[in-house]
């Protein structure tokens, strides 16, 4: 329940400059740019909802999930090829410039 929407869209993540937190107020949902990636994620959440509501069975879920995963991989591959940021995969804390120069 709510699982996918939570962990795909909201929690602590990078890479974005700066550190900030906000709390105690209803936060404005900042819509991410609607990349292909997020439309797949949206479909994934809808798929999960269908399963929870009993509209589809497990086998159907698994089948459709596999197709969505393939699309995610395709998007990822394209983004890599185009030199765009990819979520997932190994990360590290961004070094300050002087430290980074030693790399």
């Amino acid at each position, binding site marked *: 329940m709510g*699982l996918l929407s939570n*962990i795909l869209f909201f*929690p602590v993540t990078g890479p974005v400059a700066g550190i900030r937190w906000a709390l105690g107020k209803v936060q404005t*949902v900042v*819509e991410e740019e609607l990349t292909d990636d997020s439309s797949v994620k949206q479909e994934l959440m809808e798929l999960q909802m269908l399963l929870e509501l009993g509209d589809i069975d497990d086998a159907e879920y698994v089948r459709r999930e596999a197709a969505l995963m393939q699309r995610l991989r395709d998007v990822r591959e394209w983004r890599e090829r185009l030199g765009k940021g990819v979520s997932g995969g190994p990360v590290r804390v961004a070094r300050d410039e002087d430290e980074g120069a030693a790399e």
Partner: protein
Amino acid sequence: MADLQTSPADIVGAGVAPDGGKYVYCIIRSDRQREFGAIGIGGGQRVYTVAFHDLAAVVSDTPIVIYDPTRENVLAHEFVNETVMKEHTVIPMSFGTVFRSEDDVTELLRSTYQAFSDVLSKMQDKIEFGLKVLWDREKVIANIERENDEIRRLKDEISRDTASSTYFARMQLGRLIDSALEEIGQRYVNDIHDPIKPVAVASRSNKPIGDRMILNAAFLVDRAQEQAFDERVKETSRKYEELLTFKYSGPWPPYNFVNIKLKLEKAD
């Protein structure tokens, strides 16, 4: 960088180091080494902590891979957070966050120490609950037709007269039903949200998922208020059990109420 390859385990790997990587689930406050059992992502990896002063990252060993958000992987990620949450206040990490080494994890804690500490203090003894409300559109429309005189009149007119002039009547009927639906949906959302809000510390409305959902909300609740919150939600859902489906879930880590942007970069 190694070639991308697809392995049968739903992961795409750039197979360089077999297990030097650390998958990070969440950040907690702990001044001693903790073990949470063999429940980690990728087939029951050992889950343990990497500490820096009084902060600790809850991690398991992993190859350097990109994890697909399959249900299996997502549930493994969530199960660890659920387990840790039983004893700790947690700051959840995004699904699929992999660091190349333990040193990189320590560096994360060191460089973000103050922000993590502040948020952990704010989130002390707070948990999140999710509430999704769905409606059965047909049932609601049937209700509208019963209660709205103008809509009923139009319907009668259309059913009596099958000539082409009813085209406009149909259009008008559609418009009336749409606006009535919107109004009723908003009223439901307010009627559900208003009584629940006072027992929560904070609340947030997310975009509904799919076309049957009218409310997709998250509530931050003080552990001391958990029972009161629970009762309030159940009371409200009983009021609408005929018309609406309530999907109530939790406790979750405070996913919707922690917003730390980490300055991370890709480790090649």
